[in-house]
């Protein structure tokens, strides 16, 4: 499909940004290299951009550059899912986790705009457990805590998240490499989640909307 192009000069006029800003954003990888299309014209080499994409991207950068540092913005636009970070609004809009889960997370951890992949993973796991009804909202805090404190150590290993409940009191734990676990009578394993498969699902969810999303932004 032939996409409409815009020259660098027109772009700067239209968006009211300076050369300095454009080059800085390119350096910080906020604007992907592939969008810089070189063409020879009668005045020599000129740079063009895919019009719709670049206008949307610049609009997005201008909107968010006051709240976020350029590096945070860069990780947000990164195509590599594990280095990705999403804005609060995008998480809701793209339906990655439910609004309820997100609000609960913010309530617990304080207000934040950008979520890194690790945080998204906590949210995603929590949301899944909520949706299946295996866990109540109040128990979510223990999921966040166990991930926050221990996930770094076992990152890259195969691990499972277990929720155990006895007489209405619940706890959760992370276990690596499918170790055998034995519980006392009356304790019940209410949920068992294989974390690497959650990561895969989340990656797909995050990247899936990416093409559509990056056109939109």
């Amino acid at each position, binding site marked *: 499909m032939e996409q409409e192009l815009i020259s660098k*000069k027109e772009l700067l006029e239209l968006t009211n940004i*300076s*050369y*300095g800003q*454009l*080059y*800085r954003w*390119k*350096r910080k990888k906020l604007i992907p290299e592939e969008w810089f299309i070189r063409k020879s014209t009668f005045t*020599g080499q000129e740079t063009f951009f895919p019009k719709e994409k670049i206008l949307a991207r610049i609009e997005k950068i201008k909107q968010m550059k006051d709240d976020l540092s350029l590096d945070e913005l860069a990780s947000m636009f990164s195509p590599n899912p594990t280095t990705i970070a999403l804005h609060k609004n995008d998480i809701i809009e793209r339906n990655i986790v439910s609004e309820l889960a997100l609000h609960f997370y913010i309530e617990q951890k304080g207000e934040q705009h950008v979520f890194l992949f690790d945080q998204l993973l906590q949210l995603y796991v929590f949301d899944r457990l909520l949706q299946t009804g295996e866990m109540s909202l109040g128990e979510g805090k223990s999921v966040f805590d166990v991930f926050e404190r221990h996930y770094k150590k076992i990152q890259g290993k195969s691990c499972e998240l277990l929720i155990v409940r006895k007489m209405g009191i619940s706890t959760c734990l992370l276990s690596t490499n499918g170790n055998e676990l034995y519980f006392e009578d009356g304790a019940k394993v209410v949920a068992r989640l294989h974390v690497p498969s959650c990561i895969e699902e989340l990656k797909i969810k995050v990247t899936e909307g990416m093409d559509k999303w990056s056109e939109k932004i």
Partner: protein
Amino acid sequence: MRNLTVNGSALTSGGTFRNVTIRGDATISGDVQCAKWKVFGNADVSGNMTAEWLNIFGQANIRGNVHVKTIKLFGQADIRGNTNVDDMRLRGAAHIQGNITGGAIHGYGEMNVSGDCETESFSVKGVVQIANTLNAERVDLSLYFADSRISEIGGKTIRVKRSKWNVMNLFKGMANTSARLMTEIVEGDEIYLEHTSAQIVRGDRIIIGPGCDIELIEYQTSLQQSERAVVKEKRKI
């Protein structure tokens, strides 16, 4: 963690080290990871290089990519891959076949890049050749000794001048005092050019100094031009 020290001549394999010191001549096959890499003499690395510090007094050839915090180069470095560096101090010649990205590049000497150069600041006195784009927040280029060639320069502040500091002037005739910059496009917010041949210069506030030869200037706020500069066409946007 181990140290690797070469005194004399050696052929060794790469790995992870704390300090690597080469006095003499070393050929290292494979990747090298270390805190500090010092070369007094000559070093060849066939793989990638990751280090905190890289001090080269002499010569270094690296076939792979280089990822370092600080480079101090007194001598010559040839890098076949891409380079990422936070701070590079140049006192000699750097030849980079790939792209170079990072924080600051500053110093004297020769800088030759076959790809792009994208850094926060770029301040070099000497000869600079960049095949693609030089993109830096601040570009400060002192032309000295021989002509510089950069296809495209972009950034916030761009200053190109001919170096006045000149020990070589003492030996009249030896020094080439006609060093120029040849470029196609210069784009920035604030631009000062001297002794530059360019096709297009675009920016907000532009000063064209002596010895320039420019086909087209597009400016927004202001344009000043030296009497000793040639500009074919000027447009206020």
